[in-house]
């Protein structure tokens, strides 16, 4: 089955990004396809590669980047939400790209299921 995922919150402050990541990993582990993860609202902050958590904490930005590149997931950051919050191309980790909200609607159309994680 093909899943689309919407992440509405940034890393650390809310558990949303953690839960979405665990969900995506589990879906792939079960042989499903995660076509696209769309980052909206503060979710765009998951795409700031300068993020540097303490050594004993998880690094959500790096985890998403790795999962995306290893499994061909399209990691899309909403351009309008990102502009507001100062997430620009220079900050993007590998596997992320900036595009329009249309990519979220398209994910809703193309996916068998769209799952939302937020606050």
């Amino acid at each position: 089955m093909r899943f689309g995922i919407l992440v509405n919150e940034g890393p650390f402050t809310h558990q949303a990004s953690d839960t979405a990541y665990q969900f995506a990993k589990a879906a792939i582990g079960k042989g499903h396809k995660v076509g696209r993860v769309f980052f909206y609202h503060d979710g765009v902050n998951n795409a700031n590669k300068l993020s540097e958590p303490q050594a004993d904490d998880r690094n959500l930005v790096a985890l998403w980047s790795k999962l995306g590149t290893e499994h061909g997931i399209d990691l899309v950051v909403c351009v309008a939400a990102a502009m507001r919050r100062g997430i620009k191309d220079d900050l993007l980790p590998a596997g992320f790209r900036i595009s329009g909200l249309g990519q979220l609607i398209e994910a809703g159309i193309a996916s068998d299921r769209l799952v939302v994680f937020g606050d």
Partner: protein
Amino acid sequence: MPMLHTVNKSPFQTTTLESCLRLAKKGSAVLLIEDAVYGALDGTAVSARVAKRMKELKFYVLGPDIAARGLGEAKLIDGVTVVDYGNFVDLVAEHDATQAWM
């Protein structure tokens, strides 16, 4: 299959669970995740919210969130099923659509 509703807010702090339970139709499923897992506990001031719709809805709670919060040994409301992330994926796949109550 009907809808899967996910809820991620503590029923002690917000009215999110109440809103979900007001709208969820008979036969659908409710999965409590993140801070909403407190809603699955027996013997609290809000246990009745879940218990009173137990016959019409199927309730699930995310085990990793239960364990993180030190509730691994806590008594859950009768009829609530503990699931892991893999089961969460299965639940999404088995239901026609998922709605996130946040």
